[in-house]
């Protein structure tokens, strides 16, 4: 007998146990912790909700570094950084946001250094900077060295330092709590969030007029990816269910150098320090695709080049399915000092010491350029009926889950760590101003309809428990030719695997109308299976099956957003590479897509081509 009938979460007294805060931050990666630090320092009563212990957030895995025009190694200024970022974005990035990020970069990196980040150093004691893809001096001339690094563990160093500074301030962190859905007040503003304590399945409402989403990426929507297992796009799912849109979801970055067949990342730092990609005949093939900067072209360019080499039969290995990243010509000491982490990963996962042998690599899903649309201040925005943009009251988003659009159609290496700290701090400043303006908002009433919707979702997964083995699935819904072995007994784990396969085949490095249409036709079957699947675990203690089901709902919504947005965009731009529309089309497509899940429809938004303090960079042909 299903236990849930006697242990219905709805019967618990949620409203009486509600806690109130000035701000609630969801996610304890780099963006969330940087924001928390700012708000805690300002003396506000805040809570950070994180489904994992903070230092286990995915920021920890960032390797190569963080960009700032410090000019410690080569001459540099923020405007060159701005130009490179706009060009890297294939002109889809908003120029005011990119301008702001690049202006803030030097100061915020020094601030991180003050927080304790153990950056690698130059002989003169300053922060070491390495070359990275897409970086130039003087608007496209010589290679710049702009990426500040702590060996190849920069994300680890930054995340731990931010966590440590939050320990100093005594920030309240709800560790191993899962954020389920946003709650609205009677005026329609966001003013709370439903969370679940993973340890005992107890639900709780955290009430606040300021909810900041910093929930990171969703790379788990693709089968082969560099993302942590926790990267299931929970913030994005919440935003879609609350009726708001996601922006530019067709743009997923495939990192050129994942360990072939596995996906673990080999940082771009490997090429920044002098590594070279080679095909089966030993040819350094990037010369053909990016004659000027070769292996340090932007990631979309390098990923496509590798995919083309393999497609045209010049791949390495018995299956000719990867290329080689060759570091053997480098001094072994450089690899040990500057790339110790990637040496570990190569030895552990490929059985290859890069000092002695080239590492097999292939592009793997790495980063989501799109996300929850925000303005420069970190406030979430949503289109009105007349397509003008309006701030969603009470809701903020930063980091990979957000799309302030500093990355446009393709992100440059070293800009994601920068994005999280710049906009993490900025959103916190905005929230501080909001708290000063309207402290009385604490009193706003929760909207019962929005609470009801969330309760229904929770109950669904408590009541969907079936301990019997005969939870047979209706085979008619497994009729896709791609699932030629329909499961006798369906499960959350199987549905997730099928979703990842569909997305990899439909919306991978190269896309075309038929592949994307096929994916879009299959997704409703996945949706139906998820609606009917039963769970086998009815425990309330660390019920990871139930957690996985809630996460999968988010991934599925993201898959719909991705496939719909990608099918609509009939051009190739940045990471969105279409076989049937190979050119960039500024006339028709120099605009952002906005996807609404309730209507399953798209609308569009202009790209901001108006920086505040300088002339815009007008779109031109992108060559490396």
């Amino acid at each position, binding site marked *: 007998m299903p236990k849930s009938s006697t242990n219905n979460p709805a019967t618990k007294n949620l409203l009486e146990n509600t806690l109130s805060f000035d701000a609630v931050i969801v996610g304890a990666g780099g963006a969330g912790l940087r924001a928390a630090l700012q708000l805690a320092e300002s003396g506000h009563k805040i809570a950070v909700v994180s489904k*994992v*212990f903070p*230092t*286990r*957030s*995915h920021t*920890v*895995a960032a390797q190569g570094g963080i960009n700032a025009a410090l000019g410690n190694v080569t001459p540099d200024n923020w405007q060159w950084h701005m130009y490179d970022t706009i060009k890297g974005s294939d002109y889809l990035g908003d120029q005011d946001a990119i301008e702001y990020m690049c202006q803030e970069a030097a*100061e915020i990196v*020094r*601030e991180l*250094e*003050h*927080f*304790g980040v*153990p*950056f*690698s*150093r130059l*002989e*003169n*004691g*300053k*922060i070491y900077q390495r070359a990275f893809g897409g970086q130039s001096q003087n608007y496209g001339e010589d290679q710049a060295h702009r990426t500040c690094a*702590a060996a190849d*563990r920069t994300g*680890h*160093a930054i995340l*731990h*330092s931010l966590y*440590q*500074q939050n*320990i*100093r301030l005594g920030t309240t962190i709800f560790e191993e709590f899962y954020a389920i859905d946003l709650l609205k007040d009677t005026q329609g503003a966001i003013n709370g969030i439903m969370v679940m304590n993973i*340890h005992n399945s107890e639900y709780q409402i955290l009430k606040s007029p300021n909810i900041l989403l910093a929930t990171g990426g969703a790379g788990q929507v693709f089968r082969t990816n560099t993302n*942590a*297992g*926790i990267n299931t796009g929970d913030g994005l799912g919440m935003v879609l269910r609350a009726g708001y849109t996601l922006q530019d979801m067709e743009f997923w970055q495939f990192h050129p150098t994942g360990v072939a067949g596995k996906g*673990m*990342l080999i940082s771009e730092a490997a090429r920044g320090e002098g590594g070279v990609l080679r095909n089966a005949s030993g040819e350094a093939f990037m010369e053909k695709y990016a004659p000027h900067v070769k292996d340090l072209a932007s990631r979309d360019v390098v990923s496509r080049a590798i995919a083309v080499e393999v497609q045209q039969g010049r791949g390495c290995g018995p299956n000719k399915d990867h290329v080689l990243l060759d570091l053997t010509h480098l001094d072994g000491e450089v690899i040990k000092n500057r790339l110790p982490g990637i040496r*570990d*990963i190569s030895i*552990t*996962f*490929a*059985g290859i010491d890069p000092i002695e042998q080239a590492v097999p690599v292939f592009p793997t899903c790495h980063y989501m350029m799109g996300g929850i649309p925000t303005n420069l201040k970190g406030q979430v925005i949503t289109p009105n009926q007349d397509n003008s943009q309006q701030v969603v009251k009470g809701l903020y988003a930063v980091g990979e889950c957000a799309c302030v659009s500093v990355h446009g159609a393709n992100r440059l290496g070293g800009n994601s760590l920068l994005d999280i700290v710049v906009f993490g701090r900025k959103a916190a400043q905005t929230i501080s101003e909001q708290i000063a303006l309207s402290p009385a908002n604490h009193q706003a009433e929760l909207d019962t309809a929005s609470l009801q919707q969330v309760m229904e979702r929770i109950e669904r997964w408590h009541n969907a428990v079936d301990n019997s083995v005969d939870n047979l699935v209706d085979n008619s819904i497994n009729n896709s030719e791609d699932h030629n072995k329909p499961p006798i007994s369906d*499960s*959350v*784990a*199987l549905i997730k695997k099928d979703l990842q396969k569909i997305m990899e085949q439909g919306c991978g490095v190269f896309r075309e109308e038929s592949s994307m249409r096929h994916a879009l036709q299959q997704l409703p079957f996945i949706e139906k299976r998820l609606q009917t699947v039963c*769970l*086998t*675990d009815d*425990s*309330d*203690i*660390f*019920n*990871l*099956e139930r957690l996985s089901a809630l996460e999968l709902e988010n991934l599925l919504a993201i898959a719909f957003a991705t496939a719909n947005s990608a099918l609509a965009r009939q051009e190739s731009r940045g990471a969105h590479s279409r076989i049937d529309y190979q050119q960039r089309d500024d006339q028709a497509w120099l605009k952002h897509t906005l996807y609404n899940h309730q209507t399953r429809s798209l609308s569009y938004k202009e790209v901001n081509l108006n920086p505040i303090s300088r002339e815009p960079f007008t779109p031109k042909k992108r060559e490396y």
Partner: protein
Amino acid sequence: MKLIINRYNPENDQAPYEQFFEVDDALIQPDTMLLEVLQMVREQDPSLGFRSSCQEGVCGSDGMNVNGKNHLSCITPVTSLKQPIVIKPLPGLPIIKDLIIDMKLFYQQYQDVKPFLQATPLNPSQEHLQTPKERAKLDGSYECILCGCCSTSCPSFWWNPDQFSGPAALLAASRFVIDSRDIKHIERLKELDSPTKTFRCRHIQNCTDACPKGLNPSRAIQELKSIMVKES
């Protein structure tokens, strides 16, 4: 492939017990990691509890005791392990469920050593200068991922978990004592200079043996002790 996994769900079980699982050998490649096998087991039994996140040895979520030694499952190749593989939670801390332990005490010990830089405040236009040599001293101490494999393999920690700081916290303490930017190292040393906090370490080396990142907390503690002796 045969596995014996410790199970315990306090909702139903009086005490932990062992459960036998079998995974089809055809699914195992020479480079298959233990985490992947555990995921296969979870497909058989979705109630199996273990933590994981990055799956590449940098987040520290999936520390567990495998054939008697602490490991991160995501970077432990199964073909290196004797079968049946006996998997238990990290020892010495309360079990929440199956392989998931309560790390509250471990984190508290970390927090207690004030693991954050305390430096002369600078304005944002300049960075602290630190030579490559000074920076190199931090190598081997800042890379800790707080997985708990070291502290939970330490007999001194098992005997006095409420007093002895444990290898992970002491490694973090040493990282700030030796950081050329930190100005509080005298205060740090004074706080650590107690028969239980630091000197309960007997250099049994279990911590160093267990560290999946190849760090050497035992040596760091030895250095802490020798700095204390010199400075006192």
